[in-house]
């Protein structure tokens, strides 16, 4: 088999997608006719100037927002046909989210934070806990399981968030400026972790405005004014 003959299964597919915000009489086209496919095992970065629509696109990909026009398919499921509960379920089963500001839940400890998505999936607690402990070990925090988020450094918090994003075994891992709040050394650690995940076959999409972060990914999609400006192969 040659690489080009068989394309991998599409995980996320945007077909002529627009997201329009109605601001009084004038409308803001945050995304304007996007067509693209992200395939199983892909490692993308999404870049562009501020306001170009990166976060809007990631929210759509993560199913916390819906396109105004066009169609979006996750693992072949069209989100346009889903109601709020089904959409939530789709997020819970298919998507892993990593945020710029970590967004850990302060009243829960590390282990509990990692397990949050499982709470909504009816995974048996024993199995969930085993998964969470394994992931904590994986991100190097198995000795901090009962620590509260405020007792951890930024890098450690983000690693907890990564473990949390993986606990539901998602088909698509989304990160919006995941390293935006971290220093260079910690950023490198996190990116190493992403590299590892990519090597294991995880589909990853990073939104970033840092060129050296973007260059670590396989492909970069450049947005400009809500449209695809260019697509670059990094390696």
């Amino acid at each position, binding site marked *: 088999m040659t690489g080009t003959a068989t394309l991998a299964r599409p995980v996320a597919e945007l077909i002529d997608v627009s997201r329009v915000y109605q601001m009084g009489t004038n409308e803001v086209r945050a995304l304007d006719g996007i067509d693209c496919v992200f395939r199983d095992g892909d490692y993308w970065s999404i870049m562009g100037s501020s306001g170009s629509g990166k976060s809007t696109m990631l929210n759509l990909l993560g199913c916390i927002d819906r396109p105004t026009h066009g169609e979006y398919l996750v693992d072949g499921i069209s989100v346009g046909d889903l109601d709020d509960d089904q959409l939530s379920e789709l*997020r819970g089963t298919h998507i892993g989210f990593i945020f710029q500001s970590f967004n850990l839940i302060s*009243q829960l400890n590390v282990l509990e934070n990692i397990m*949050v998505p499982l709470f909504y999936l009816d995974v048996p607690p024993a199995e969930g806990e085993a998964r969470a402990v394994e992931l904590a070990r994986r991100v190097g925090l198995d000795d901090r399981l009962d620590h509260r988020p405020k007792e951890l450094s930024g890098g450690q918090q983000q690693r907890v968030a990564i473990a949390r994003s993986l606990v539901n075994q998602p088909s698509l891992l989304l990160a919006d400026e995941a390293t935006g709040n971290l220093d260079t050394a910690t950023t490198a650690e996190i990116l190493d972790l992403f590299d590892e995940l990519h090597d294991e076959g995880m589909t990853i999409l990073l939104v970033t405005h840092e060129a050296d972060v973007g260059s670590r990914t396989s492909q970069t999609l450049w947005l400009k004014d809500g449209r695809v400006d260019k697509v670059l192969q990094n390696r």
Partner: protein
Amino acid sequence: MFGNNTFLRTFRLGVKSLMLHKLRSMLTTLGMLFGVASVVAMLAIGEGASKEAQDQIKQLGSQNIILRSIKPPEDMVSNQTVRVSVYGLTVADFDRIKATYPWAKSVVPVRMLQQEARVGKRLLNPRVLATTPTYLEATGRVIHEGRFLNDRDEAGFANVCVLGYEVARYLFPFESPVGKRVKLGADYFHVIGTMLPRVPIGSDQPDAGTAVTEEILIPLSTGRLWFGDMQVKIRSGSREMEQVELHEIVLAVDRPESVLVAAAATREMMKRFHKDIDYEVVVPLELLLREEATKRIFKIVLASIAGISLLVGGIGIMNVMLATVTERTREIGVRRALGAKRKHIVMQFLVETVVLSVGGGVLGIGLGLAIPKIVEVYTDMEPVLTVAAPALAFAISVGVGLLFGMYPAWRAANMDPVEALRHE
């Protein structure tokens, strides 16, 4: 949808979130605490009050209508040196009542005499009641030893008497009085029985406070024969004579429903035959109803306090929960992004609210159970604690939590996840 496990975990999460703001959570529960406390206290005191009233009516006899002689205001028949007051119930009244209510359970006439009772050196000034055998049943008294007066005693003007419990104990401290003799005034009476004590009723007794049991009962016929209708009272130099045929007539009707009608008819009849108001008609059932009405007002006041505190408590909780929801907008966004459905968010905040209100409620039940104890110490009321009261209070606090938690939870669940995630 929500297994036990899920609920338990949601509950633990709620407690954890509340523990983040211990003081705030504690203060929030105060309103519920006082509301629930007043519900529990109200029920205990209300229950006690109505039990007390029921006991009282049992003693007075709910089917009784009591007529009593009272001295009319000065001055009917008077003479400068010797006053003779003739007033009160008559034997004719008694006969009329008997004739009017042939179906009555009993009609009991009572004469009260002031006579010394003496056994050897022991002397006593008891109430001597001259009455008929029906007295026992009508008053619900119980024979301790021997027997009560019977029809033959009455017909034969027998010199027999029945002693009240205390009287018997005082006059015959070492032996059974039955078969012995007691000197009443100038005559000897054979003791045929003694009675068990009863709790003083208070209002219906002329000598309230002293032991009601200090009495001696003799046949009515004997009483009239030996002591006549005239009684002499020596009062601050002047001699006062009273002529009263009967001091009390107790009419016991056959059914509780007929008490009020019979009372009205009796009043009407008495008005017709007595020019002066030299009698009173006491209907225990009426007294009871009046007392119940007062207690109802008391209950309404307590219920209003409870209602207002619960409302204020509920609003306080809702207010805090709304603040909590705003404060935790980001958390809500994160949870939604990680797969939480609206119902999960609703559940989370609703459980938190209910934990707050039930926490206050449980403390309130504690306080509410303590209040009646304090009332018991400082008043003569005797509150009755029931299982129903705390159970109701618990249900109320769950209800208040659900009611006032609904809106904050709904607000939280309907946030747009994207907006919530952008919230600072």
